């Protein structure tokens, strides 16, 4: 029999038993489809969560001053800790490679801010230039706060896009204008945009030194932020920070309430680890579904072989070798698995692509995609699995005893 004839015969046989073929095909189709879909959605979730972190520098460390919860060296519980500019120098010294160190002092309560054209309540923050880097602000008009502003305690302000809109209508018109805060005029030198959402876009940034000079002479602040090298071990880093600050502010270094440390990199890594876990889970579930599909191929081929017992018996009686019978059945399984698996792959990819193109995007979901390598691996798995699925029924078919099969009953 020629190659083409063999495949024609297999196709005819598959077509003769359409219902069964379709059922079998559906099992494999669904297995691959689900695998692809799960992988794509997993990727979308991962990207979504990663993008949530993109708003801030991945390696930023946020140290927040708190209230003591342990008695220490004669001090009682409940003492508020506040940072001063000397702490900045101390952190700079203690943490190798710390950059963009900046205080962030939030003026208590939103302040009434007015311009010639508007009026509103906005959060006002005193910072160093490094803070723009850490928040990943993007300047859209003018400039950021710079070192000279800090040194000269300039009375300038950088507005979030939203606050600029509320105060000046068009953000572009804000540059050079003045805002009045507690009776003091600050000249607007920049307007920024940010991925952090509405509340961050309502912020008004002032140079920390100017804020200290004008609105809040204490020169104290509650949040110290800096960027660190990724290589620093998070536990060590936190320990070191606590030690340094504990000495400077006389609190127990083990007092977790006195200062709290948020290491974005550590959190990011935790999330990454979680997604490694989720991806593993998705892969296991997907492969399980695929495997179930292949088992169903094997099962249905088994039934098929039983039903075709007479045909197979006769073929053997007129000279078909066991090998040719085995190949016949395996090729049918392979054909069904490959075509339906391929379809599952294509439809799965199409669905993922449609989701991506439709721009379905939530805070935690964006740009779903299936790794080409994973898709290829899935395809190879079907071809391999399909052949394997056909093996047991094929062996069974090859062993058919023609006398038994042809007994007239």
């Amino acid at each position, binding site marked *: *029999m*020629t190659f083409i004839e063999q495949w024609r015969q297999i196709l005819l046989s598959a077509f003769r038993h359409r219902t069964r073929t379709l059922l079998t095909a559906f099992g494999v189709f669904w297995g691959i489809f689900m695998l692809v879909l799960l992988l794509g959605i997993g990727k979308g979730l991962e990207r979504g969560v990663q993008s949530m972190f993109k708003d801030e520098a991945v390696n930023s460390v946020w140290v927040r001053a708190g209230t003591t919860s342990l008695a220490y060296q004669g001090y009682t519980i409940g003492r508020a800790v506040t940072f001063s500019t000397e702490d900045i120098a101390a952190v700079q010294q203690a943490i190798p490679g710390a950059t963009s160190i900046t205080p962030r002092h939030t003026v208590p309560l939103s302040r009434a801010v007015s311009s010639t054209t508007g009026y509103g309540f906005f959060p006002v923050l005193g910072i160093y230039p490094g803070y723009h880097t850490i928040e990943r602000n993007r300047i859209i008009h003018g400039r950021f706060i710079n070192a000279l502003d800090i040194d000269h305690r300039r009375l300038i302000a950088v507005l979030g896009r939203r606050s600029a809109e509320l105060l000046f209508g068009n953000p572009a018109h804000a540059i050079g204008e003045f805002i009045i805060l507690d009776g003091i005029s600050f000249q607007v030198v920049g307007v920024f945009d940010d991925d952090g959402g509405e509340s961050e876009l309502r912020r008004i940034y002032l140079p920390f030194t100017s804020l200290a000079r004008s609105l809040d002479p204490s020169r104290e602040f509650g949040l110290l932020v800096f960027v660190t090298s990724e290589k620093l071990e998070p536990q060590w880093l936190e320990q070191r920070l606590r030690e340094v600050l504990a000495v400077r502010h006389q609190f127990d270094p083990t007092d977790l309430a006195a200062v709290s440390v948020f290491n974005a990199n550590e959190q990011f890594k935790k999330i990454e680890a979680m997604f490694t876990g989720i991806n593993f889970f998705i892969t296991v579930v997907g492969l399980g579904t695929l495997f179930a599909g292949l088992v169903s191929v094997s099962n249905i081929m088994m039934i098929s072989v039983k039903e075709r017992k007479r045909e197979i018996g*006769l073929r053997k*009686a007129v000279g078909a*070798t*066991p090998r*040719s019978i085995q190949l016949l059945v395996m090729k049918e399984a392979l054909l069904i698995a490959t075509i339906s698996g391929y379809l599952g792959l294509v439809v799965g990819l199409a669905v993922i692509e449609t989701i991506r193109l439709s721009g379905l995007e939530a805070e935690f979901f964006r740009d779903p995609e299936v790794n080409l390598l994973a898709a290829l691996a899935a395809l190879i798995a079907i071809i391999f699995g399909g052949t394997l699925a056909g093996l047991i029924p094929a062996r069974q078919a090859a062993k058919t005893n023609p006398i038994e099969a*042809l007994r*007239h009953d």
Partner: protein
Amino acid sequence: MTDSPIIELRDIHKTYGGAENCVRALNGVSLAIEPGEFVAIMGPSGSGKSTLLNILGILDGFDSGEYLLASTSVSGLSEEEAAATRNRFIGFVFQSFNLLPFLTALENVALPLTYTSLGPKERDFRAMDMLAYVGLDTRAHHRPSQLSGGQCQRVAIARALVTRPRVIFADEPTGALDSGTSDEIMTLFLRLHERGASIVMVTHASDVACRAQRIVLVRDGRVCE
């Protein structure tokens, strides 16, 4: 070659089942069949006729003894070789025709040739030739369900002949047919015999057997001619 028997059985034993419920189907059968002979095998039901024919057709194995088909021992053949031997040397006709219902008469006849090295055109040509020989060339593209019992059996005979086998085995080929149709089929076998075919046929009907050249009686797994 014409002098040596086409089939030679020496002391064949065959039992079915295990130690407890074992059936001694063949109990030392020896038999020689010359090329061109037309042998009818007769005997009471359960005497072992079908068992004998299945062994002759290499569809079944045996426990002891020797079987030479065209002077070659069958015992040492692998499954693949046995299949090839069935294909090349043997044609089988069954009581229940055993045509594949989803194939046309022509495709059914050509089926054994698909396990040879012949190309599709040559196969169709030969199959058509055989159909013409049994008088069914006009029904080549009909399916078995569209044919009568006698016509089906003629297609089955054409299928048995298409590989030009050395010997044809038939197990009660007229068993499922009425007497008129049986006569037609027997005439066909006799015509084959006249053309020199070796035929071994199991039958219950003595009028059928009488038309054979030689009658072999089987009783309780033994041959008594």
